[in-house]
């Protein structure tokens, strides 16, 4: 039987995909291929689970609409990361304003108790780091997440966040200095 190679991001996944229309299945496969990694990336920037999911939803929606223009998996990944990180910065910055706090009165994750799962012990061990990391600006968290966690070069990070490379270098340096200082003060 002849087989066709389906791009990973378009491949249908899961039981639900088999019961829905072909178009729904393709969309589901697209979301499933990217969702978890993107939510984690967005969460490192905005520090709020539902906000991270919203940022990812916005990114996936735009990507799905414009997927025909994207040439390959590598460009799709960085393009998605750029949209999602910028959206996460925007949402996070908005929440720092008074209006944002009033409208988004839901309890913030960094004010919530640690999750009751098997990672709880490890999570507790990072309490100081987490608090220090949460005190960074959204822009600083974005460059830390993209450069240190997602593995982009400084140049690539600059392109993704839309800032000059020197600005990104400064943000990384300031983020490291602030984390070191905060952790020293906490001890």
């Amino acid at each position, binding site marked *: 039987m002849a087989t066709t190679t389906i791009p990973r991001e378009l491949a249908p996944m*899961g039981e*639900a995909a088999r019961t829905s229309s072909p178009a*729904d299945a393709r*969309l*589901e496969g697209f*979301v*499933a291929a990217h*969702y*978890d990694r993107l*939510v*984690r*990336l967005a*969460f*490192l920037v905005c520090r709020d*689970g*539902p906000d*991270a*999911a*919203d940022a*990812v*939803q916005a990114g*996936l*929606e*735009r990507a*799905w*609409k*414009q997927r025909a*223009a994207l040439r390959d998996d590598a460009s799709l990944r960085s393009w998605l990361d*750029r*949209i999602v990180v*910028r959206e996460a910065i925007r949402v996070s910055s908005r929440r720092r304003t008074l209006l944002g706090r009033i*409208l*988004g009165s*839901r309890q913030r*994750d960094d004010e*919530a108790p640690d*999750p009751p*799962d098997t*990672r709880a012990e*490890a*999570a507790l061990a*990072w309490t100081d*780091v*987490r608090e220090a*990391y949460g005190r960074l600006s959204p822009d600083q968290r974005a460059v*830390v*997440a993209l450069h*240190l*966690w997602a593995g982009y070069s400084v140049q690539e990070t600059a392109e993704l966040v*839309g800032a*000059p490379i020197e600005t990104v270098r400064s943000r990384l340096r300031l983020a*490291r200095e602030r*984390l*070191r200082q905060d952790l020293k003060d906490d001890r």
Partner: protein
Amino acid sequence: MRSDDDELFDATLLSFLDDEAARVDALPGVPSALTVTTRVARRLEGPPTYRQPFAVAGVLALVVISALWLSTFRGVDTRPSGLLTEVIDRGYVRIAIREDFPQSVAGGLGGFDLDIAHELSRRLDLRPELAIRPPEQMTGPEGLAGVDLALPSDGRTSADEGAVVASSPYYHWPVFVVVADTSSATTRSDLDGGALCAVDGSAGADWLEGPYAGPSSTPVEAPPRDISMQLEATDRDCLAALLAGEIDALVTTTLNPADLAVRPVRTLGEAVLTDPRSILAPRAGIDPAGLIAEVDRVLSEMRTDGSLVGFSQNRFGGHDLTVPVTP
């Protein structure tokens, strides 16, 4: 140089980031991939779904109340969105460019305006959707229908302020009077009573016919008097006539200083006019002021970081035409 201590700190930080990123999996309020699929599908099909309906309703109420207050007590135009908002929501920007100079179709369409259109879209975080239009169609509501921005590479199209809004010029095209190396003419007045060639419909032809009413970034020089004018379709045709001795001089349209330097010709004096070329947005329809302001911001950014000059030098034989030049 980074020390071992720095490397250790980064390794610790990376370990924390790994654990922290994974923490989102257990947080309440994070929908599953399947839920997000459904939300995206709904949004693609119909009205948007919102995670915080009450907050959104509150914002909408606030907007409506503010708009009513402003329109009642301040007399302010309360149009809720402009063309900039629309293209951002849409995710792509429709840009018209011309197929001929400064583009070229040799080996696939390429050229200065195409470079600028792509770079502009990239910096606006929008996907470009390009349309090829003749420049004379980039002047009015009909010609600009279906596009958000237009790069006609002709300053005269910016003149109709009722139909278009123009950005600041992104390059300045010099128009020269050119004679053969063997010509005895040393000044433009030596061409009085002579035969001159220009491209039909060009700024140079307008200048020869006089008086030139279009824009210029440099002082507009007086044309030679009592001339006989020969109109051709391209500079190449005028150049052939010049080198065949059929005319005394030509007025350039697409030849730039680098092109002239490699031919047996010379310019008479400085540019007779310099065409400032801008990016246009149609006034018909949604207010384009915000979009043009954003275009100007990007152009300013490109001037500051040197990329605009780089594009010019790459396409115009090493010349910086982002500012008015002389040969």
